[in-house]
């Protein structure tokens, strides 16, 4: 599996992965320095191709950019170690270094910005993990994408499908094409057994399951699935060992087809 993942570096470097693959690869990147280094180098190579697309920008762009920056506060650097942002940046910025909307005409939902997992994932490790070398998908699911969840659930084109759980409670999957994301809302979901977590999955047309994050269960839980859902035909939930699994190791407790 890891060699397969590694082979995605080139497509990732040129943004040629679909959302699910992208999310999967970024999770890998967070723990694989070799891949980060390779992605850096391949991005450098790809960037050289921009020599072939040089086009003078319209003058209006210069004025709108230079006017725009006066209203945007530059983030502080990501400090080495646990003291990241002790002095700079609001807590919100620390928690979410990349999704703050810039003030722009484009009001469409924008996905979580991860400009370069090669760097940003490392930054996310430092910021979200408080300096520990572990990436906590949990943190992202609960603290940084709530607004995405709200946008999905309240989007005019939101659709939803639900299911009751075998041990009580229910889950509903919302998705919005305009936002490009899917959200799981669980009610009265029993907590995962000790040492286990609930893992979310997208199921593709071939029936294969792609990891889409973790969730805890509880009275009311809302989690945005990692990655876009457009290539998915459904979503599932399994019980997995703590930390999650790259592939399902148990029968799904819920498997919801997108109608």
């Amino acid at each position, binding site marked *: 599996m890891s060699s397969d993942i590694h082979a995605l570096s080139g497509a990732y470097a040129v943004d*040629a992965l679909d959302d699910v693959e992208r999310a999967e690869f970024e999770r890998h990147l967070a723990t694989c320095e070799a891949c980060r280094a390779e992605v850096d180098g391949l991005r450098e190579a790809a960037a*050289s191709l921009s020599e072939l697309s040089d086009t003078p920008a319209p003058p209006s762009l210069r004025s709108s950019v230079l006017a725009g920056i006066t209203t945007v506060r530059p983030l502080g650097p990501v400090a080495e170690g646990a003291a990241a942002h002790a002095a700079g940046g609001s807590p919100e910025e620390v928690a979410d270094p990349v999704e703050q909307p810039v003030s722009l005409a484009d009001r469409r939902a924008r996905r979580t910005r991860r*400009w370069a997992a090669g760097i940003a994932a490392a930054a996310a490790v430092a910021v979200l993990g408080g300096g520990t070398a572990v990436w906590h998908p949990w943190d992202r699911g609960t603290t940084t994408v709530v607004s995405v969840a709200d946008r999905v659930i309240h989007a005019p084109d939101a659709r939803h499908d639900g299911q009751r759980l075998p041990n009580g409670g229910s889950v509903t999957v919302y998705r919005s094409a305009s936002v490009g994301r899917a959200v799981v809302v669980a009610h009265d979901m029993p907590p995962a057994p000790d040492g286990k977590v609930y893992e979310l999955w997208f199921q593709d047309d071939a029936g294969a399951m792609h990891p889409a994050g973790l969730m805890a269960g509880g009275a009311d839980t809302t989690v945005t699935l990692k990655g876009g859902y457009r290539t998915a035909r459904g979503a599932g939930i399994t019980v997995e060992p703590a930390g999650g699994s790259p592939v399902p190791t148990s029968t799904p407790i819920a498997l919801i087809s997108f109608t």
Partner: protein
Amino acid sequence: MVDHLRSVPDDAPEPGATAGDDLAELLKRSARGDEAAFARLYDATSAKVYGLALRVLRSPAQAEEVAQEAYLEIWRLAGRYEADRGSALAWMLTITHRRAVDRVRAAEASTRRDVSYEQHNRPVEHDVTAEAAHAALEARRVRVALEALTEVQREAVTLAYLGGYTHTEVASMLDLPVGTAKTRIRDGLIRLRDTMGVGAGR
């Protein structure tokens, strides 16, 4: 790592660009809120940032929007740029490219897909060559480097990067078995990297 840094392109077409400007230094000053430094950064890179957005999106209006978004993000994140991971230009173009591609995917614009597919059915090399006609030595160096790639690698890389297509779409366009385009893209980029002598220092 210094060998990652590329100096400001000597042939930067914008009049405001001065040959001595170091993009990484300008980014650093931008991170401290230096708007004049950012203006110089803009002048040195706007043809590349806008040009890349235009190349992917095809629509000048959308390219301008995306380029603006990208610059505001570059301004906001300038302090996060790490020189030892790559050149400032590559960092900026990574932000730009991701935004352009996100725009394409989010829009799911069938019109753009249709038009682009048509355009991409022309031989890619011709396309590349024609659009680079005004570019100077650096572009020539890139074209020469591209010639070191196999034809499939070259087309896969240019469709993915300059066309903004997913590897699945690239596979379909090039009649490759699903799953092999990503390998071609990677192999092509590795060869390009090694030929260009960029990013190989780690």
